[in-house]
Each structure stands twice: as structure tokens, then as C-alpha cells.
């Protein structure tokens, strides 16, 4: 068996080990590679930055713990930015499996920023129906969420003073890991009720949302852990996403090297077998 053949039939556990080490070592010994801010992430940041104090900011946390590593840092960075700008933060989720996590997330960041529940922020929880909830909120927010996550009537929350439906929302960001998520918020929310909107999503979903970004249907997009790291850099509070960027770069290099090596071995093997065929 030639070297190329042996390499192409290598035990896949060796590749797992290489990828594992490429991820683990930079996490233990960070290098601090520079992070370049992309225009799509800056779009969300600049818009929040331009909002006047006490503007209504709606954050829909449309993911569950399965997507936590990518979207949780995005949510933390967005909430920190919104609280720092003294916006009225209304959080909610369209994913029933993410309700507890979303509550923990909002409560944790609000506590860290010294914000008061009901006055500075509220968590509405989950309501069934997916896209129907968005349409319902567009008509009457109190009908979609008669009570918040803790069971208090939403009409009694001071943060919602003057907010009747989605038309009263100044800016909205959906952090989506699938459906319902960013697309549903655009189709049944922004396109119908005309409010400004940005998006955040997992890396897998990002290429599918770029057409919405380019056409101006959403004004910014935070894609995956990389997007979260850019946002953390923009607000100047580096967290888990920035810490993971060295590992991300190292694994990408490892995968590129593996892809190149596989192709080299494959073509060399094909060339050898073709030469043998001609001789035979």
C-alpha cells in the first residue's frame, strides 16, 4: 500500500484528535489574533448606537440550548449594548425549548448592568403559534402576550407604556437558529408592520440570509460565533466569543490543510493508477 493510499484510509479518530487539539490548545493558550469588523455586524451596532434613550428595542431569542455556543454570546453582547444605551428592552422567544435559557440570559445581563425589571426591561416568555404570534403582536401585543414570563399582566408593565403593537417598536433583532426566526420576523413582521430590523443567526444559516441583507430587507446580520466576537469587540466587552476566535482560526487552518492534503493524495493516487493502466 502506497503512502497516499495509507493516508486516504487513515483512521478518522486521528483526524478527530487533530481537530480536538487545534481547538483545545488555543483555548488554553490564547494568541489574540486580530478581529476585523464586517459591515454587516457594524450595521446592527451602528443602528443601536443611533437610537435615542428609552427607544423600544425588541429582542427575540429564537434559539434553544443546542445553539447556545453561537447565539448566546451574540445575545449577551446585544443586551449589554442596549442596556448601556438605556433602551427599553423587551425580550421574548418563539422557541418553547429556549424559554428557560432566555429568561436566565436576560435576567443575568440585566442584573450585571443594574437594570430594573418592568421599568428598564421585560421578558415576555413564549407564546404558541410561531408566525401567528408575530402577526398577533403586529395587531395587539397584549393579545399575543397577556402576561409576561412570571405571570404578571403585561398591561401593568411600565416599560410597555405607549407600546400597543409592533409599529411602536423602534428596533428589533431576531437571534434565530432556524424556524421561526429571522426570516419569519421579516416576512410576517417587518414587511407588514414596517419597523427597522436586524438579525443574528448560526453560521449554518448565514449564507441563506445574505440576500435579505444585500437588498436592505434587514439592516445588519450577526453571523455565528465570528459575528458575536465582532460585536463584543465593537462594544469593548470581550467575552466568550472573542476567546473562541483563536480556536476557530486554528481549526479552520487545520481543515484547509486536511482538504488540500486529501486532494493531493487523491490526485496522486489517480495519476498512479492511470499510469499503471497505460503500462498494463
Amino acid at each position, binding site marked *: 500500500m502506497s503512502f497516499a493510499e495509507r493516508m486516504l484510509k487513515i483512521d478518522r479518530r486521528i483526524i478527530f484528535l487533530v*481537530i480536538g487539539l487545534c481547538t483545545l490548545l488555543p483555548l488554553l493558550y490564547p494568541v489574540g489574533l486580530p478581529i476585523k469588523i464586517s459591515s454587516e455586524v457594524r450595521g446592527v451596532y451602528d443602528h443601536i448606537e443611533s437610537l435615542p434613550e428609552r427607544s423600544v428595542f425588541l429582542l427575540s431569542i429564537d434559539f434553544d440550548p443546542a445553539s447556545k455556543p453561537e447565539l448566546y454570546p451574540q445575545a449577551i453582547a446585544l443586551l449589554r449594548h442596549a442596556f448601556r444605551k438605556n433602551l427599553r428592552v423587551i425580550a421574548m422567544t418563539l422557541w*418553547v*425549548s429556549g*424559554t428557560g435559557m432566555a429568561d436566565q440570559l436576560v435576567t443575568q445581563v440585566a442584573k450585571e448592568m443594574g437594570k430594573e425589571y418592568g421599568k428598564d426591561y421585560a421578558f415576555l416568555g413564549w407564546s404558541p403559534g410561531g408566525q401567528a404570534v408575530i402577526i398577533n403582536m403586529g395587531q395587539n401585543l397584549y393579545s399575543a402576550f*397577556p402576561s409576561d414570563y412570571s405571570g404578571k399582566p403585561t398591561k401593568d408593565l411600565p416599560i410597555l407604556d405607549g407600546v400597543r403593537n409592533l409599529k411602536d417598536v423602534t428596533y428589533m433583532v431576531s437571534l434565530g437558529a432556524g424556524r421561526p426566526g429571522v426570516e419569519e420576523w421579516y416576512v410576517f413582521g417587518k414587511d407588514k408592520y414596517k419597523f427597522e430590523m436586524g438579525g443574528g443567526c448560526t453560521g449554518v444559516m448565514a449564507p441563506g440570509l445574505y440576500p435579505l441583507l444585500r437588498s436592505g430587507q434587514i439592516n445588519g446580520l450577526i453571523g455565528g460565533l465570528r459575528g458575536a466576537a465582532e460585536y463584543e469587540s465593537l462594544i469593548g466587552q470581550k467575552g466568550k466569543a472573542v476567546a473562541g476566535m483563536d480556536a476557530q482560526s486554528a481549526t479552520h487552518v487545520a481543515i484547509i490543510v486536511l482538504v488540500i492534503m486529501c486532494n493531493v493524495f487523491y490526485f496522486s493516487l489517480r495519476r498512479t493508477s492511470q499510469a499503471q493502466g497505460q503500462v498494463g
Partner: protein
Amino acid sequence: MDATVLGAWVATGLTLLIFSFLYKDNPLFKLAEHLYVGVSVGYIIVKTYDTVIVHLVVKPIMDNGEIALLIPVAIGMLMLTRYVPKAAWMSRYAFAFIVGMGAGLAIPRTISSFILKQIEDTVRPLLSIAGPDGLTFSMNLLNPASNLNALIILFGVSSVLFYFFFSIEHSGTGRAVARTGIIFLMISFGAGFGYTVMARMSLLIGRLTDLIEFSDASYGRPTIWLTLLTIGALIVISRRARPEPPQEG
């Protein structure tokens, strides 16, 4: 034991059990997999019951007398007639309501958002070539709004659409356009794969970050102890699974 510390031990243990699949399929992985499915479904059932049945149906009817809510409840209950063969036909009314409402809501909005708006955006940038100062053409590849990029996108959209147009034979010029469409599709798949790799690595980074955090003494070093325990269990399992050598004679 503090809830955070207990949570750290459970999270670490389940992460390591799932990771044990990288070595090979084994009962530890199966245990963690079944726990994940069971806990997820249990959580969803409890949350749905509490939010929908208790807070959105029972409380408004009992406390505020919102009797009109009985109409959607009745339509929803029709779904359950699927379990009674003689009354199963009644569930069709509920399905008809859902399909009709879903289609009515989705079709116009989807056409508006994903077809009309995207067509408009594909063609509109070309109009900027003929501006108030006469004809201009920007060549900057890095600017998404440049005329060159607008042309590339228009050509890409047209060639990919042509590739999926099977009513005429792809030969001569048509073949060249269809081939170009394939190239655009390949670039799109490549971008998608790249982002997928990034996403999967992010998940790995997330778990490893937690494992590093939980190796701290304040949690009782669950990462170290449970890694040793998992490795030990895997050794025992693989020894037990080893087939007996055939007896001679």
C-alpha cells in the same frame, strides 16, 4: 451540594458521554442521547401545558370569563378525533382551518418578501448606471453596491435559473450559460459548507470552553474526574465486547 456545582458535574458528564461516540458507538453515548431526547421532550410538554392550557386557556376563561376562547379550543380538540376511527373525519375541519389559514397568510407575504423584493434588488442597482450625471460604472468588487457586483449577481441569477430550465436542450451557448450556472451554484455550496464548518467548530469550542471552566477547583474538578471515569468505562466496555477466541479441537 450547590446547584451550580451539581449542574457543572451533570453538564460535564453528559458532554463526555456524547464525545465518547468519537471513539466508537457505545452504551454511554446511547444513555446520554436518550437522556437528551427525553429531557427535551419532557421540558417542551411541561412548558406547552403551562403556557397554553393554563395561562392562555383556563385562566382567561375562569378569571375573566373569555368564553370566546372555547372556539379555538373546540377546533383544537377536533384534532384528537384522529384517535377514534369513527369520528376521525371531524379532524379534517381542524386541518382545513390550519391549512387554509397558513396558506392564506404565507403565500402573499412570501411572494412579496422573497420573490418581488429580491427581483427588485437584482435589477434596481443596474438603474444606478444611468444617474443624473450621465452614465457611470463603479468597478469596486469589495463594495456590494457597486455596478460590477450588480452585473455579477444578475448574471449569476440568470445563469442558475437557466440551468434549472429543462424545456430546451443545453447545447452551444445554452450549455455555456448552464455551465456558468453550475459554477455559481458550486461557489454558493462552498460558502455554505464553509459556514457549516465554522458553525460546527463553534459548537465544539462552546463545549470545550465549558469543560475548561469546569476543570476549576471551585467546581470540584469534574472535567478531570469524569474524563478518567469515562475512559475507564470505555476500556471496560470494549474488553467485554471483545469476541471470545474460537476454541480449538
